[in-house]
């Protein structure tokens, strides 16, 4: 063999060996300064992540000499990152899970079963009786607990006070029902410069707020929580769906979808829409230049109250190491988040809402009132598929086409929806 071949062989083996050694020392640490590291995956805007770090994680990490919680924030596309991490066998130890996802993740064996830990603990953060039943529901699957909620955000009605005064419409009260809402909306919807085009709308909607709000207020359920039977043959369900569409086509208090686009609350923020249904922790009640007040949603025709709650859980990976220590850290983390993020899903903390977030004080009573009637969507393994089909096959055509009615659309879409439920 030529001498230079030996040189190349030596170079190849040396570089290859160094590469292999270097790779073996790379990768995430499992401990630092004698403390076990737990990785915590979450979503959030920049400010939110900074607050989470300073108000929740830093105190927890400073107080513990046995573990350290390290943040893995996803600026966007959180679900794909989390799913890939789990599929790639590098799941974070703790992670946020949207309420719709808990029932999808739990059957796959990727979440730690928390039932025993919760039942055996005396820690108030694990006292299930303190939790509102709505957001707690999606955390259960097959009779076991797979996560606990860290937030429960009911939908409330934000009203632009100036627009109500200009149209001489009294602000909502506790007796408001659908017909009052429509009547007010019709008065609030105005062409202010007489050019034949509406300038101020009474209300704005697209896929948001969820149609199930109207269905529940009408005393029905889209999906039976026990049997998972589809309620599309129920007259009250169809009535509620038609009512949502009528807000655009019949009562004309909400603009067509092409005017609303994707930014559902943009019209409200711009002062061109008098009422908007938004999450309790949205900043719509403190918009610069607008006087906005919050109210509970109008009740159904027979006085039934219901509001959608957006909620999310904090789960532990089934592959977590040192389970006992992980549970201890998870409890601290959950308690810390619940005392930072509003509205917390526990009754004992709901009373402290103004202390936790003083800027929400004017709306605090309304939020607490709404929390008493909030519901969470029925837990489904295929929730995303069902939701997509429901929107594309029924709700969107109903909201876009003035001549469409819920009955025929529901009849046509029912087989595909039933398949998604199975």
């Amino acid at each position, binding site marked *: 063999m030529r001498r230079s071949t030996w040189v*190349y062989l030596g170079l190849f083996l040396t570089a290859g060996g160094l590469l292999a050694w*270097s790779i073996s020392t*790379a990768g995430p640490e499992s401990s630092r300064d004698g403390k076990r590291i737990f990785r915590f995956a979450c979503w959030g805007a920049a*400010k939110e992540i900074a607050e989470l770090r300073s108000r929740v994680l830093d105190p927890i990490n400073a107080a513990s000499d046995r573990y350290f919680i390290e943040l893995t924030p996803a600026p966007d596309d959180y679900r*794909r990152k989390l799913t890939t991490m789990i599929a*790639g066998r590098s799941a974070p130890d703790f992670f946020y899970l949207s309420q719709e996802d808990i029932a999808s993740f739990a059957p796959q064996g990727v979440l730690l079963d928390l039932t025993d830990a919760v039942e055996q603990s005396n820690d108030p953060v694990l006292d299930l009786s303190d939790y509102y039943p709505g957001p707690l529901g999606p955390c259960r699957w097959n009779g076991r607990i797979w996560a606990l909620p860290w937030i429960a955000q009911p939908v409330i009605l934000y009203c632009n006070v100036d627009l109500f005064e200009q149209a001489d419409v009294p602000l909502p009260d506790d007796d408001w029902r659908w017909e009052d809402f429509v009547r007010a909306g019709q008065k609030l919807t105005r062409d202010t410069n007489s050019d034949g085009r509406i300038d101020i709308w009474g209300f704005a909607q697209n896929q948001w707020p969820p149609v199930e709000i109207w269905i529940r207020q009408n005393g029905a359920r889209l999906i039976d929580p026990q049997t998972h039977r589809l309620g599309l043959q129920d007259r009250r369900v169809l009535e509620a769906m038609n009512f949502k569409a009528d807000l655009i086509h019949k009562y004309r208090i909400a603009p067509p979808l092409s005017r609303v686009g994707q930014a559902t609350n943009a*019209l409200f*923020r711009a002062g061109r829409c008098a009422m908007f249904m938004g999450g309790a922790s949205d900043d719509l009640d403190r918009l610069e230049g607008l006087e906005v007040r919050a109210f509970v949603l109008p009740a159904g025709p027979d006085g039934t109250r219901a509001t959608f709650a957006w909620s999310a859980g904090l789960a532990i990976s089934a592959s977590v190491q040192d389970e006992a220590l992980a549970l201890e850290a998870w409890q601290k983390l959950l308690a810390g988040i619940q005392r930072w993020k509003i509205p917390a899903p526990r009754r004992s903390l709901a009373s402290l809402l103004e202390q936790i977030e003083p800027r929400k004080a004017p709306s605090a009573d309304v939020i607490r009132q709404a929390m008493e009637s909030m519901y969470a969507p029925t837990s489904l393994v295929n929730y*995303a598929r069902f939701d997509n089909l429901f929107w594309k096959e029924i709700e969107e055509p109903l909201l876009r086409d003035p001549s469409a009615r819920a009955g025929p659309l529901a009849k046509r879409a029912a087989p595909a929806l039933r398949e998604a439920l199975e």
Partner: protein
Amino acid sequence: MISPYLATLLRFLFLATALGAGTVLLYRLLRRCQAGEDTAAGYAFLLPWLLGAVVFSLVPMLLSLGLSFTRYNVLASPDWIGWEHYARILSGDPIFLTVASNTALFALFAVVLGIVSSLAAAMLMSLDMRGMGIFRAVVYLPSVIPAVSTALLWRWIFAPNGLVNALLAFFNISGPEWFDNPDWVIPAFVIMSLQGACGNNMVIFLARIRAVDVQIHEAAALDGAGLWARFRHITLPQISPVIFYHLVTGLIGSLMIFTQPMFIQTPGRSGLFYVPYIYQTGWEQGAMGYACALSWILFIALMLLTMLLLVTSRKWVHYESQDALMITQGRVLQPGRARRSLWLAGVVLFSAVMLLPIVWMVSTSLKSQPQLRQVLGTARGPMEHFVDFPLHPENYADAWSALPFGRFVWNSVFIAVLAIGGELLSASLAAYGFARFNLRGRRWLFGLLLATLMIPPVVMMVPIFLIWTRLGLVGTFDPLVLASLLGGGGLYVFIFHQFFKTLPQELEEAARIDGASHARIFFRIILPQSLPVMMVVFLISFQAHWNDFLGPLLYLDRQEQYTMTLGLRYFQANYLGQELRWHWLMAITTVMALPTVVIFLLTQRTFFTRGRR
């Protein structure tokens, strides 16, 4: 503890050294085993790419093929179900038919119009005159804007009373509702795609047009050939390899359109395309097995179409190396004075059209939050808010200080520099191997090269992520840079290949007779002649890494490792109670576009003239 940057840099150097030495060893081993010169040298040049193609393309592709016969939801183990998915797709999935026809229609128009418009732009911009560099930069600019910002801009531009309809109204034309009218959704996406593709495609066309022999044009003109006849019979044949490249990559790119439709809602499924449907099915609805089957149907369709193009290309693509080209040194035929004015008017008009969305982007970056609310709340982009006074340049400082963007820039630069370096080296080596050596199995390997471009990346993410997890390198910069040394994907190899095929071989043959080694010929003769294509690949690769979102999202875990694009997404995502900060998003997008444009302005002279002889 060793810095994460230094650790990645060292591993990059170790891998580069091992591959370099391995290349020489493979050549000598094959020669010792009585392999022919072409086969030994060819495989040695292909080695880095081949390793990458097998590990990061072929294995994940085969895994995804296997998964297409299973029920698999990503989180749990797959269950074998045989041909069930394929049977369902081909017989009973109505959404499949809708998305397939949407995508085919889009691809047809996007590819044809894309080639025509970018060729027209390149012809216009090929003129030698003072300030032409600025016009070229203007046309190039839209292609460097991150997809998320592009989608947002075009949503506003195509709003019912947005920019396009306002311009149409100027001519008394009532514009359609574009993204809100099912009949106009595909045309809107096609127009949107033209603006993005035009810049990159124009650069590649321009590099080739500038090399077309002026003397042939002059001789033909003397013989009485008109402008069209000279374009058809002289220019077109000489740029045919580039047209072929754009046809193949344009077809693949448009059939795999993904990011923009993900950010633009359209009525029903009128704007649902194939790859977004695969993503929706696999990632959002947890039916990854079905998504893999959909991907393989797309793969087969793409393979058939590409083979058709390859077969027909023999009749119209001319690869003959023309030594005369070397004499031109970038000189192009200049029109007469009257035509020059007309030409210039065309340049200005074309640039103005391309510039409009950019002006809108900058104007948005200078709006306050209340001004922006009026834009969004009135009807998503009305003309009366095109420029709002007072301007708010402080948005730039506010956006920059909202997150550690200084660190993000450093991370992006670190990743881009290493990855581009690796890609330029390994892709050019592989392309040379394909273009010059008649090695055994070349056709199959070239087929593999094209095949790696044809499977949607969304179904290969998990297998590739698993490989990096097994290596223990998730959470480091390595997954974003090391693969670049292994060819960095087939696209760059394909670009280099199309260029090398047009280079004259006489010099190499002379050097071989003088006893020069293949490596010496490649580094001393081929690469110096390849500066134009090196710069084209550099620019495309820089854009790809600078604007990459998915790679950093999946492989980086800590905020201090994040890149500019990840930082940008903090302003785009819709989180609890937070108002979207479009003005900050556009401010950072503008800042992100600057480096690419500066590089383009500084280097365009290099790639619009031929390299050293």
